[in-house]
């Protein structure tokens, strides 16, 4: 493995990153999905430096509560110490590396290593060392051998994020203007700023494909709707047709938002100024609840209530659906050939029990290993990956040219400041601006030596905060 700068070009395992992610021609090499050395380089260059989602604070409400999560390939412990402070630790004993926690979640006063017995308090301090006086003569400096803790952690609206890079920018700077769109996932339905919680039970399963397949799918792939036609025919949606209540998208302006300097992306809809759209017609209680929330949302959000958020990805591997269903997915890399998908299901904490139960059933019928819609996606990703592994297949790149070289129509944003590169795809139906932005950022991470280089927006480059409308959105951009 190498990341050499020989001859002025950045290379990964002998492949030029510029050749593998060629945004001028709109192509991406299959190597970045199947190559083991490139995968190893991702762990060091990307997952050890980016901000990663670890869990939700509602999973650890009490002192001593913990949830074992992942950051890239690393097992980590999200826990709340006796003083109620939240920590994220590497789940590995500092003596010989054994996992100090092998449960998914629970409550404990200590994390004890079953190998030799070193024991760590929930604040990470080394608390117990067998034969401390006899074998170590009381000389072991316990203060230097606590659990390895992330240098930066951020609890953002209940979601806990961390990075292994002490030099990474703050989480808010990492998000940039994308924060506007992420908030639609994390704020309550009525826009009043209340608390959100996750349903008990995080769904986890292995998908035999590279982690980037789902990340790029959620970053803004409107084009794959055809693959969900079967579930639409089933009519599993909460009003009896389709897979979700899509009426709110009818007549709306379809917009794609990309943040190529950060890698994030989402698709969304801007509704006309009209009345509320009925939803969740299968249950009067649920329908009434959401009608109430929608009315409150209009009061609290004003013009922003016209904005209907859609799927998105916070670079690199945090994806979500903000409305129907309302879920978070993290694609934990395990090898070039597979990743673990983890799904959290979100709900407003103060929602009635009947609403939570209805949503729980609807959400898991849509997403997760048993979810009808997710099954469609997994089928595509599995076989796409498998068909890209061979020596011949690797010679031929994927095509990301959709929309390149063509202006998008302008639209009336009604005065809303919409951060990012905004592309109106109402007529075109789809574009691949967001995917190109995602891979542009992926290439940045594999090229850059440090965060001084990665934080390009500090050097006067696009910071994703400027409003771009239609043709102006693409001025000076290769996307």
């Amino acid at each position, binding site marked *: 493995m190498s990341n050499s700068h020989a001859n002025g070009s950045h290379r990964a395992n002998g492949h030029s990153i510029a050749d593998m992610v060629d945004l001028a021609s709109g192509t991406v090499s299959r190597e970045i999905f199947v190559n083991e050395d490139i995968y190893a380089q991702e762990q060091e260059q990307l997952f050890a430096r980016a901000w990663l989602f670890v869990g939700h604070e509602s999973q650890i409400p009490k002192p001593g509560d913990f949830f074992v999560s992942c950051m890239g390939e690393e097992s980590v412990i999200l826990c709340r110490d006796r003083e109620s402070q939240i920590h994220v630790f590497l789940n590995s004993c500092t003596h010989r590396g054994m996992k100090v926690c092998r449960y998914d979640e629970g409550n*404990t*006063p*200590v994390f004890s290593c*079953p190998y030799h*017995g070193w*024991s760590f308090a929930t604040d990470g301090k080394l608390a*117990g060392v*067998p034969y401390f006086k006899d074998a170590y003569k009381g000389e072991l400096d316990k203060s230097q051998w606590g659990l390895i803790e992330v240098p930066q952690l951020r609890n953002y609206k209940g979601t806990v994020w961390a990075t292994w890079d002490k030099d990474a920018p703050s989480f808010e700077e990492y998000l940039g203007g994308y924060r506007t769109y992420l908030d639609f996932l994390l704020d309550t339905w009525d826009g009043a700023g209340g608390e959100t919680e996750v349903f008990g039970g995080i769904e986890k399963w292995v998908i035999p494909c590279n982690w980037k397949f789902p990340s790029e799918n959620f970053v803004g792939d409107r084009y794959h709707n055809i693959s969900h036609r079967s579930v639409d025919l089933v009519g599993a949606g909460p009003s009896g047709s389709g897979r979700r209540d899509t009426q709110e998208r009818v007549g709306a302006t379809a917009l794609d938002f990309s943040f190529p300097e950060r890698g994030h992306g989402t698709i969304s809809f801007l509704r006309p100024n009209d009345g509320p759209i009925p939803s969740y017609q299968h249950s009067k209680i649920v329908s009434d609840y959401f009608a109430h929330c929608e009315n409150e949302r209009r009061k609290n959000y004003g013009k922003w209530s016209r904005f209907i958020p859609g799927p998105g990805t916070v670079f690199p591997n945090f994806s979500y659906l903000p409305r129907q269903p309302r879920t978070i997915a993290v694609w934990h890399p395990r090898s070039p050939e597979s990743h673990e998908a983890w799904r959290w299901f979100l709900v407003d904490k103060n929602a009635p029990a009947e609403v939570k139960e209805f949503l729980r059933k609807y959400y898991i019928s849509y997403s997760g290993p048993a979810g009808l819609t997710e099954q469609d996606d997994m089928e595509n990703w599995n076989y796409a990956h498998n068909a890209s592994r061979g020596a011949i297949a690797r010679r031929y790149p994927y095509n990301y040219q959709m929309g390149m070289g063509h202006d998008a129509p302008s639209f009336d944003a009604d005065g809303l400041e919409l951060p990012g590169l905004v592309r109106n795809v109402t007529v075109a139906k789809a574009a691949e601006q967001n995917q190109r932005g995602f891979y542009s950022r992926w290439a940045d991470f594999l090229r850059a030596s440090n965060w001084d280089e990665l934080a390009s927006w500090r050097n006067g480059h696009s910071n994703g905060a400027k409003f771009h409308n239609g043709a102006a959105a693409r001025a000076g951009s290769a996307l």
Partner: protein
Amino acid sequence: MAEVINLITIAEGARISTINGATAEVVNNPKDGVWVFAKYLTSPEDPDLVGSEDMIFAQDIAEVLT
């Protein structure tokens, strides 16, 4: 060979003796099979420990007294 003590089953409030001849009352059992938290009641070798709470390692526990 002395009987191996199953730490998982030791309840809070139980009294234990250590291989150093001390006695202690279990105040918290994390049930990890490795440690218990206990308050020293007697400690002939180190009287300063009496009244203090500490973690006691499984292999340092000689017997469960009550």
